[in-house]
């Protein structure tokens, strides 16, 4: 289980630049980062997995909190999370393969969202493992292209204010 930092930043190219610049500059060993929009179009949330065996999550957090464009850093460490990944998978699909692909999609609770002359696009959502497995099964037909969101996550069952608001309160 990675240790997640949820970092709310201003939604701009400049602030993304600052965050990535800092992580690179400090050689902080973080895992693959995913980027989510939030209820507020002004914000972006970055989900940054860190391995506590390699770097103290507190240090990553303390460095990120120095940036003015960072509105909030939440350490989700051990908290229970809902984590979802989503992929769009374009597969080569002559019409004789449709049924089989549809059955496979059904099994993964995936959906076919585009039907082209030679290809289908399958949309699959779930844990990273489930999405991996679905893509692996589709390989047999010939996967043309995959885009995926990377994990999006949320802490289960809490009804507090959004992180940025809470942080702003704490700073005041």
């Amino acid at each position, binding site marked *: 289980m990675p240790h997640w930092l949820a970092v709310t930043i201003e939604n701009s190219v400049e602030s993304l630049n*600052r965050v990535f610049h800092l992580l690179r500059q400090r050689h902080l060993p973080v895992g693959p980062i995913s980027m989510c929009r939030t209820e507020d179009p002004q914000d972006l949330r970055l989900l940054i997995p860190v391995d506590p065996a390699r770097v103290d999550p*507190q240090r990553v957090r303390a460095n990120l*909190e120095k940036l003015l464009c960072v509105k909030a850093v939440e350490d989700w460490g051990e908290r229970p999370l809902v984590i979802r990944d989503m992929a769009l998978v374009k597969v080569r699909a002559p019409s004789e393969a449709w049924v089989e692909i549809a059955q496979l999609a059904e099994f993964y609770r995936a959906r076919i969202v585009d039907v082209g002359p030679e290809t289908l696009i399958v949309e699959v959502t779930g844990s990273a493992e489930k999405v991996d497995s679905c893509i692996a099964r589709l390989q047999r037909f010939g996967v043309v292209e995959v885009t995926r969101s990377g994990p999006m996550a949320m802490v289960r069952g809490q009804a507090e204010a959004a992180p940025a608001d809470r942080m702003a309160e704490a700073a005041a």
Partner: protein
Amino acid sequence: MDTATMAQTQVAPRTIRRERRRMKTAWAVMEALVREGVEVIFGVPGGASLPLYDALYDYPQIRHVLVRHEQCAIHMAEGYARATGKPGVCFTTSGPGATNLVTGLTDAMMDSTPLVAITGQVPTFFMGGDAFQEADVIGVTMSITKHNWLVRTPAQAPEAVHMAFRLATDGRPGPTLVDLPRDVLLAEADFILEDPEAFRPSRPRPPFPDERALRQAADLIAQSQRPILYVGGGVIHSGAAPEIRALAEKARIPVATTLMGLGAFPEDHPYALKMLGMHGTVYANFAINFSDLIIAVGARFDDRVTGKLSAFAPHAKVIHIDIDPAEINKNRRADVALIGDAKSILRALLPLVRPPDTEAWWRQIEDWRARYPLRYRQGEDVIKPQFAIQMIYELTKDYRPIVTLDVGQHQMWAAQFFTWTEPRTCITSGGLGTMGFGLPAAVGAQFGRPDRLVININGDGSFQMTFQALITAVEWQLPIKVFIINNQYLGMVRQWQELFYNRRYSAVYLANPDFARMAEAVGAAGIRVERPDQVEPAVRQALAITDRPVVVDIHVDPEENCFPMIPSGMTVFDTMIAPGVKAVP
């Protein structure tokens, strides 16, 4: 803005309050600087910053010091800041003017020096198109400033300037930069001029250490048998020297300082172990490495202090006091971390402190101190650099000088052979080790502290990196004293080549000009010293000259080495006190 309004602005008393005025952005920037209490700006004008200099013309209360290279401007700003504690300010144009700041910004970032750089930029409608003298200054300086701002509209300008000042001094000090496109500087707008205090970066602050953490620290101190205070530059930023002294005296704890912490604890005090680290005293390094408790205050466990990190002070617990949470557990794990301003934390901690029994510990330290004093041997003919430095110290100490050091052997000898007693009197480039820092820093320090004697201990190599700062010093008739410890070598590098590269001297010999005549040529006084008996009269002569800078070119033993030395990445057991001779605990 028309001349009538301008004249009014000049005579009106500058009470700091909110007011609304129509003017060009460049003038609003100057208004913000005045409100920040800026008294001197170091810089060079150019195309993109012309509007700013045009506005400057209307603000005679702010002195502008014209430099001959922007690197000098920023080191002057650093010297000013380190001598006064107030942020230094420099102005440059876009492109090459701004990129010439890179070394100084990095230096200030490393040494936590507060300063504000204001750079011109090409007009917004040209930006991104490789316009003449365009450089991506925001991108280039992102990792070497605490924050930087590109001002896109007039309204953003005063806010950016005020925030730049707040952030430069807020928490851990450091450099900030404001990039001002020419079209924005020229645009006229209605400005609301604010009290600078209206601007505050809203950062979450770590809570002040709770009673429990403070008690834990006090308990560790009470239980320790071999405690040591490891005091760094943060104590000087914090103004916590009196609290350090109170803690040391209350608990009878020895104090070692870093290069950046010199002056934070008086070295004429019996508890002072002087500087620790690579070229620190043997007794300071033995003491920290054999300690069972390190109280680190505003110090960042730099590799010049720890040597091989995994072998550093293996039996010590650590209390780490620092204002920057990102410093905690960066290099060395802290047993108790107290995050916040050193002065406030020490004040809260002091009443809880119970003195440990350090009787035996002190006997051990006194033994080390007696066996391994700093030493050198001065003969009849050749000047030993340590002797020259000690003479300079003895002959100037009654003036309580502010001393700037450049980088190299001379820097380490000065760190060793001066007796540092007062914060903000030792100004040097520690973290980046920037050759060329010392002379412009002396100029900046003299602007900040016109009441004090400012001296610069320089190297023959380093002097030639920013020599042109002397021209500025002459122009302003600054009575700074520059002592060049002239060994005709890039001495520190030569020392490493001698000790670790089989004496293969590669690119370290300096075919030097006559520095005294160089000084005379630009209107400074120049004195050349070649024999030991000439040192004292030369220093006295230099002190007598008060209407211009003096350069004293002291020719010293070219192959003298700086000891003690713990070679890079090694441990205290590898301490060399002479070539091939190790210190034994």
